[in-house]
């Protein structure tokens, strides 16, 4: 029971990070029907920006951990958003209206560019930081002495994710920007006929996705404490799996899919083998694509008449 609880907590933490990244995939797919394969690398950039921001803030003498973390988060969101905006502007917008595969190929190219860029400017070696947030709360102790505990950093990650996803869902559901986004998602041409600047809405969608990926990157940094230029690939593919599992194009689906992938991975690692945890996650992708191609909360493609 204690062991189970521990895996549950670990899974939810991991799932929060995947969920935050998955939203970027699903929103972009919803609005322009492409998989932004560079999104995982935007997450990686977010983690590196967080690292740099953290070092700068520490150098400036801000040592209060909550304040420092908040600053890092805000800086990472702003700078990473700029990356997201630029990627769309440079690599995807010129290809709009071109054949379907063109932006996809461009996205893969962009992913390689970002990885190499970070590798060159930051070096290929793994970067490690001291744990910033320590301690935790013991929850349960078993007879043989195993203590299930939730670390403070896990609390921070889960709470931040819940708060951001709530805020984000409210933006999409209630604001005029969110309404314009949904309109573009449902009928891009009609939205333009109603005076919506669709290019602007698409740009802002990339910005929002990148900001959430930056949060995920920041969380990843403080949770694991190690970074390299390659983390975006695996995390990106897993978040993509989460988006597919939840139903690509669906926001609640991305969040649910993220949590599920996190849980599956944590339980697999906890009960079977941590070496093969990626196999579990990717098997889910294969199974989902075969038996549940529209995902858990996705819509079947209905032919319009």
């Amino acid at each position, binding site marked *: 029971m204690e062991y189970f609880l521990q895996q549950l907590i670990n899974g939810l933490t991991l799932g929060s990070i995947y969920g935050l990244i998955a939203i970027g995939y699903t929103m972009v797919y919803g609005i322009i029907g492409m998989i932004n394969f560079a999104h995982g690398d935007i997450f990686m950039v977010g983690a590196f920006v967080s690292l740099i921001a953290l070092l700068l803030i520490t150098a400036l003498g801000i040592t209060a951990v909550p304040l420092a973390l908040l600053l890092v988060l805000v800086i990472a969101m702003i700078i990473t958003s700029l990356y997201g905006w630029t990627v769309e502007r440079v690599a995807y917008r010129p290809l709009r209206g071109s054949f379907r595969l063109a932006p996809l190929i461009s996205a893969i190219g962009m992913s390689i560019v970002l990885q190499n860029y970070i590798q060159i400017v930051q070096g290929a070696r793994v970067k490690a930081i001291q744990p910033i947030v320590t301690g935790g709360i013991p929850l349960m102790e078993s007879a043989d002495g195993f203590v299930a505990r939730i670390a403070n950093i896990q609390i921070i990650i889960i709470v931040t994710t819940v708060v951001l996803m709530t805020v984000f869902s409210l933006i999409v559901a209630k604001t005029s920007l969110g309404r314009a986004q949904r309109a573009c998602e449902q*009928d891009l041409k*009609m*939205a333009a*006929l*109603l*005076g919506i*600047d669709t290019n602007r809405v698409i740009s802002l969608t990339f910005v929002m996705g990148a900001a959430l990926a930056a949060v995920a990157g920041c969380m990843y940094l403080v949770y694991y404490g190690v970074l390299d230029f390659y983390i975006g690939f695996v995390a990106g593919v897993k978040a993509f799996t989460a988006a597919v599992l939840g139903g690509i194009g669906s926001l609640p689906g991305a969040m649910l899919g993220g949590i599920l992938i996190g849980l599956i991975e944590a339980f697999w690692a906890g009960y079977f083998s941590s070496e093969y945890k990626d196999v579990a996650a990717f098997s889910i992708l294969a199974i989902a694509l075969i038996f549940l191609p529209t995902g858990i909360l996705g819509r079947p493609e209905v032919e319009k008449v």
Partner: protein
Amino acid sequence: MSEPLLAVRGVKTYYGNIIALKGVDLDVNEGEIVALIGANGAGKSTLMMTVFGKPQAREGQILYRGQDITRMETHEIARLQIAQSPEGRRIFPRMTVYENLQMGAAVTGGQHFASDLERMFTLFPRLKERMGQRGGTLSGGEQQMLAIARALMSRPRLLLLDEPSLGLAPLIVKQIFGAIGELNKDEGLTVFLVEQNAYHALKLAHRGYVMVNGVITMSGTGRELLAKEEIRAAYLEGGRQ
């Protein structure tokens, strides 16, 4: 005579290499209802979309109140108080009726939203009953009403209507055409209407144009066109209601 509200001058539109409009000339004057009739595939809807720059005309000019809008972006054209209820209605299916109408008012900044909404509900009382329902769940007639109401929410001077009668029961067609006539008479709304239902359209319209294979072949007042033998033979025989 003063300059027309909308002037189409020698417009040629292509889809890839295929020519759809082969040099169209047409005027819509302020306060008029103008009908464009023609068979399937004649290019009527293409003309409607070309006015909005989707696709853009490759040759020729489109002038709105004397301003050249041929190369403008679609959303900028929409902000000039031209609205369209397009082919296929294009309701946002997963948005409520209310949200669809909010989208219609996107260009106005929402100052008159409440009073405009009331006006739409007076014009189409059915929409009020369906306010919280998703667009995709409405019947065809209700969707058509919503598409027109959504276009009107932007407070247009010029309204483009693409086949408002398509697939609708005669009674609903009558309602919708009645509403269009009222808007024109009471508020001076200029309407440019594309129809296959030539009889109703020409009866309602002040003037009409006939399009065949991407060119205008005939024009005149609604009554003149209705009286013409070729029109009766091609568009009306058997279709009279």
